[in-house]
């Protein structure tokens, strides 16, 4: 038995486990690309446990890596030889203030559980990710974006207050005024300055029903024109869109035939409504010029929010959930969006999307105040995500194409979303954060002076005294 096991267990109320007790899934994350075996796994019962664990790690020269649902794909949520802090043990919804309206939650709360908890009150967090199986702390540490982000920004933009355990083991309550640097440095901060243990989240009143218009576009310019209109008109509560391949056969690519597709662009525009007061379709869709209006769907709002669950279940049953996920998600400047998408999709084999998809999410830059969620300048932005599920044996074949895609989107002014496949040198990290790089480094040095939190992802330069 590891001698540290009992020492740490004596200090915390939660559970400590050793690698021989480790569930194999904890050795990697959703990406299935990077692996590590932690020395100890801690399931904390409270923020005090988290603080004690960090203090213990400092005393013993160990790192601490945080893990929520483990949906990251790079060197996050895994640990090699350090302490893996499995935050899903802290999953209490603490208090709801219906007047504010806000809710206090522990960081390990799964968004789906929170949505279900709030549903009877007809309250909902303004932004929800497509995958509701991830944790509050996990997505806040990345940014958290979804189909309402064009109105409300990131999930981090809808946080009132945080409790954070810093790399020194101190527990700090922070908000936009108190300890504001730690507040903004924890939102989209990749767990580098501290570990979020509690969040006070904004809520908004919701309506019980949704109506979704399924529109199809056959070319990118008309899709972009209508996406901008849909965002700017303020008529819709949610906008969701994709690139959808229609396979055409095989064509030579560098002399080797591979499947290719004609791409179409489905757009789902959704509004909430009260029972007995359905929306005025003609008014809502005025001015939009889709190639085809395919379908209009009414569903309870809770079902709409969980709309992706059956898709993910299908992927799990089909086995693709266990494949390599090397997602390349980028926020593009609007004026370059068509260039990038049209450069990428014609040569993207449709088969790469078995168990995955190509996302397009129209967004507005002014909706986010986040300092570390990097996005291009400009009001209109387009998120572009190539989200493949790749059998492990094909990873080395697919890797150059996906790495080129990352380079291409960055070269054309895009900013990557950091839960995806990131394996960067310091130069690319610097370029990504731009003028926020030095403040980010300073934040790390202030709050995690021994660099014990979530190592291996961001290559912070060594401090020079």
């Amino acid at each position, binding site marked *: 038995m590891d001698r540290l096991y009992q020492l740490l267990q004596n200090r915390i109320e939660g559970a400590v486990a050793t690698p021989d007790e480790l569930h194999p899934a904890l050795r990697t994350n959703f990406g299935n690309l990077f692996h590590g075996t932690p020395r100890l796994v801690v399931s904390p019962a409270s923020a005090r446990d988290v603080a004690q664990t960090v203090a213990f790690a400092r005393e013993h020269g160990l790192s601490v890596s945080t893990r929520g649902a483990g949906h990251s794909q790079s060197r996050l949520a895994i640990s090699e030889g350090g302490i893996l802090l499995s935050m899903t043990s802290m999953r209490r919804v603490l208090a709801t203030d219906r007047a504010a309206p806000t809710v206090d939650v522990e960081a390990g709360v799964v968004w789906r559980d929170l949505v279900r908890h709030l549903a009877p009150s007809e309250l909902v967090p303004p932004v929800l990710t497509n995958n509701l199986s991830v944790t509050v702390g996990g997505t806040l540490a990345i940014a958290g974006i979804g189909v309402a982000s064009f109105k409300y920004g990131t999930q981090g933009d809808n946080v009132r207050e945080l409790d954070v355990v810093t790399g020194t083991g101190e527990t700090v309550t922070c908000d936009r005024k108190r300890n504001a640097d730690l507040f903004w440095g924890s939102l989209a901060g990749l767990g580098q300055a501290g570990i979020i243990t509690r969040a006070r989240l904004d809520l908004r009143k919701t309506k019980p029903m949704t109506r979704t218009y399924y529109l199809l576009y056959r070319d990118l310019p008309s899709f972009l024109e209508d996406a901008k209109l849909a965002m700017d008109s303020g008529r819709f509560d949610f906008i969701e869109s994709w690139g959808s391949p229609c396979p055409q056969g095989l*064509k*030579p*690519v*560098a*002399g080797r035939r591979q499947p290719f597709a004609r791409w179409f662009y489905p757009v789902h525009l959704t509004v909430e409504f009260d029972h007995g007061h359905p929306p005025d379709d003609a008014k809502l869709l005025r001015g939009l010029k889709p190639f085809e209006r395919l379908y209009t769907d009414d569903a309870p709002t809770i079902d709409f929010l969980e709309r992706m669950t059956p898709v993910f279940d299908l992927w799990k049953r089909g086995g693709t959930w266990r494949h390599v996920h090397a997602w390349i998600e980028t926020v593009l400047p609007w004026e*370059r969006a068509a*260039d990038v998408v*049209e*450069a990428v999709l*014609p*040569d993207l084999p449709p088969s790469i999307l078995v168990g995955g998809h190509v996302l397009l999410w129209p967004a507005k830059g002014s909706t986010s105040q986040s300092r570390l969620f990097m996005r291009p300048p400009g009001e209109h932005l387009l998120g572009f995500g190539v989200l493949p599920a790749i059998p492990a044996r094909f990873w080395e074949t697919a890797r*150059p194409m996906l*790495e*080129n895609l990352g*380079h*291409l989107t960055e*070269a*054309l002014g895009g900013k990557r979303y950091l839960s995806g496949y990131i394996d960067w040198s310091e130069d690319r990290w610097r370029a990504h954060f731009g003028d926020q790089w030095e403040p980010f480094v300073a934040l790390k040095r202030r709050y995690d002076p021994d660099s014990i939190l979530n190592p291996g992802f961001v290559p912070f330069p060594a401090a020079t005294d």
Partner: protein
Amino acid sequence: MALDFGTPEWARALADAVNASSEYRNAGATWGVGFNGNLLFAFEAGGALPKSLYLLLRLEGGRSRGAEFVPGPSHPDAGFALRASFPLWREILGGKTLAATAILTGRMKVEGNMVALLKHAGAHRSLIHCVSALDTRFPGS
């Protein structure tokens, strides 16, 4: 029969190969349409290549209007220039390195509208394939 790299015969054969490629005809259909798509390939001295060579490939709408080795590192007819060491070109033509990777990582220097070039990555990959498929005697081989 293999042709010697750097000769007028090799350049003509390359233009013919481009025009015979249905892959390039499709992938390059919009390259050079409404802008100057002529490419200057600079094979800079290094490895087995003692002296730099410059190939001007005239391209428009999925066709080549001719190819020739030109004397200097620039040419008034070129809309774009791609500059790399000969060993890197051999890696690219041998399929060991993607041209796009070389460009995006800065190993290959680009002169001209980078956005236009990147937008047509498929056309250039197809073009590289035309070059690498040509039966060629390279220096040092």
